[in-house]
């Protein structure tokens, strides 16, 4: 949300320095605005609304992670929420007070974890440990799982990552000695506040944005745009995808930890298909390759159902009065997505970021050459593909 130009725009040598200053100024301004907003939210919104605003942040982190993992690389992952679960349970088990752990009867926990007591720690230090540990374990699992899975493409990788999600879900339900099964963990201290949640949003957006604007990001986009050409210019596709998968898993794990420290419980049902599809809709709605799009998508999908709930309850609009129609909110939202997909299939932002519009410089440097009309765009020569299909589905 603080990027200044389309990632693909060229920067003239001379201009790049002043752009850098400009960029810094906008970043500082954006952070200041965010700070002001959070101060306002903290002072004037009721507890429920504050929780909602915090939830926007958590969803934004997950959506931006998925933008890195799937949006940049084109590897459609349906397993992201598995990492959310790993981060959630890891974080929860670190911060739940020992007496509650023994009350919930978790015989599977190792001794050190069963007796670990972070309650004496400063709250934010305990949360930081829980988040980093949750993210770290998610990243580690992603490295192990991703090594074989990132070789796949297309629907193969979608199905395989969904398999991972199903496995995580099965473990969460059946490893009762650690997860307490379907009942889930409770008594997780409420450590997540507005500020820390948005601090993690800033860190996530910053890291993903830096990656995007580097050789890493360009290589990821290249492998998405044309796998064969990417390999031909020397992109180690497997490694780039794995990096995106692992970093995305880290931040999603962090979000999982933030989430359970907000809602106080961790149950398997929160980490399954409904959440998966919600996050995918956020990212697709925002534009698969856009960081700011993911943030906007997360905001819309988190807040819209709340506002639409009023509609469900029925309204009086002067002469018109509506009775209560439950389910209407979902239908309105769904119709909205369908309309977006019909009229803007690339999502609200496509691959672009909101920055240029903010500065009044729309898409710098993407001018067309003189004498080239879009109609002059040649169609690529049709023909037999030289690369065999059996080599196309693999990347290693």
């Amino acid at each position, binding site marked *: 949300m603080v990027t200044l130009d389309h990632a*693909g725009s060229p920067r003239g*040598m001379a201009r790049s320095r002043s752009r850098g200053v400009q960029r810094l100024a906008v970043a500082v301004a954006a952070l200041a605005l965010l700070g002001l907003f959070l101060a306002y939210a903290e002072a004037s919104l009721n507890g429920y609304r504050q929780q909602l605003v915090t939830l926007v942040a958590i969803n934004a982190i997950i959506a931006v992670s998925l933008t890195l993992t799937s949006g940049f690389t084109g590897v459609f992952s349906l397993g992201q929420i598995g990492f959310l679960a790993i981060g959630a349970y890891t974080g929860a088990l670190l911060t739940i007070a020992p007496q509650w752990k023994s009350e919930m009867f978790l015989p599977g926990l190792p001794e050190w974890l069963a007796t670990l007591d972070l309650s004496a720690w400063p709250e934010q230090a305990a949360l930081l440990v829980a988040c980093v540990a949750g993210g770290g374990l998610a990243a580690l699992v992603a490295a192990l799982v991703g090594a074989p899975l990132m070789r796949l493409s297309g629907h193969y990788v979608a199905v395989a990552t969904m398999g991972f999600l199903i496995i995580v879900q099965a473990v969460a339900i059946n490893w009762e000695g650690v997860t307490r099964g379907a009942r889930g963990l409770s008594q997780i201290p409420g450590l997540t506040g507005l500020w820390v949640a948005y601090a993690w949003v800033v860190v996530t957006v910053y890291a993903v944005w*830096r*990656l995007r604007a*580097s050789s890493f990001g360009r290589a990821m*986009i290249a492998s998405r745009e044309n796998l064969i*050409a990417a*390999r031909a210019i020397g*992109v180690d596709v497997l490694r780039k995808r794995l990096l995106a998968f692992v970093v995305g898993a880290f931040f999603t794990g962090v979000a999982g930890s933030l989430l359970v420290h907000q809602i106080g419980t961790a149950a398997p049902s929160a980490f399954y298909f409904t959440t998966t599809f919600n996050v995918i809709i956020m990212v697709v709605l925002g534009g698969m390759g856009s960081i700011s799009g993911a943030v906007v998508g997360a905001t819309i999908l988190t807040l819209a159902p709340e506002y639409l709930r009023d509609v469900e309850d029925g309204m009086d609009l002067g002469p018109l009065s509506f009775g209560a129609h439950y389910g209407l909110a979902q239908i309105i939202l769904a119709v909205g997505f369908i309309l977006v997909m019909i009229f803007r299939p690339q999502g609200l932002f496509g691959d672009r970021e909101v920055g240029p519009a903010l500065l009044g410089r729309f898409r710098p440097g993407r001018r067309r050459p003189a004498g080239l009309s879009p109609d002059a765009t040649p169609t690529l020569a049709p023909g037999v*593909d030289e690369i065999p299909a059996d080599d196309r589905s693999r990347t290693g």
Partner: protein
Amino acid sequence: MSSGLIAETTEGRPASTGEPILRAAGVGRAFRGLQALADYDLDLRQGEILGVIGPNGAGKSTLFNVITGFLRPTSGRIVFHGREIAGLPPDKITALGIARTFQNIRLFAGMSVLDNVRTAQGMRGGAGFWETIFSAPSFLRKERAIEERALEHLAALGLADLHGVPATSLPYGLQRKLEIARALATEPSVLLLDEPAAGMNAQETADLTQLIRDLHARFGLTVVVVEHDMSLIMRLCERIQVLNYGRVIASGTPAEIRADPKVIEAYLGADETPDMALPTVDGRQQTHEESM
């Protein structure tokens, strides 16, 4: 025009130093029953421009795919700078210094012209993970160097002014040039061009011929070019291999190839059109489905 061309052919042809750089011995590739490439031998000398011609389906693209790691050879050895490369993945082979273009243009469609080249450029000298995350001064320095060098490669192909436009908005001929610029950005020592003049008119082909010659000299390249356009092949190459049904049926200087009855027969067998019989210096070889 033709007499002038012939004169130019002998004079302007670049000379190679003779060091073998890329060697293939007994290389073959079969697709189920079909032997697309068989018993292929090559001794590519440092600095030479080798032409590979042959009717459609002769195995030329298969040869490139095997050399660049997109296809595993089913037999034989390929040695580059003394190192066996058969079976290595394409990105490793590119990193060793063999770059290619594709017969069917394969650009990164969503990217600008500059980013197509910059992506390739970043494969060498790109910043590491932590440098990138923290925008370290070394990251900024490397990014600037990558961009500068990418613009140089664009300029070498005459595309510098178009750096900001979407790659796919370029006309066909410029898209082919952009693919060459992108291949150069991997800083190769050997460049494989698969039908670089396909879809170009006579004038564009003549310009491209000169351009390849310039790039060859300026970047010290060794070039293998697959092309149906005989004017390009005859003017550019000091040595030509003719493939037919996956086998080298003739090999030699342009003059030798032109006079070889086996070559004439191969072309006759591939196409009934009489004017296809002789690969001539001036005529365009348009009768093949050249888009393939």
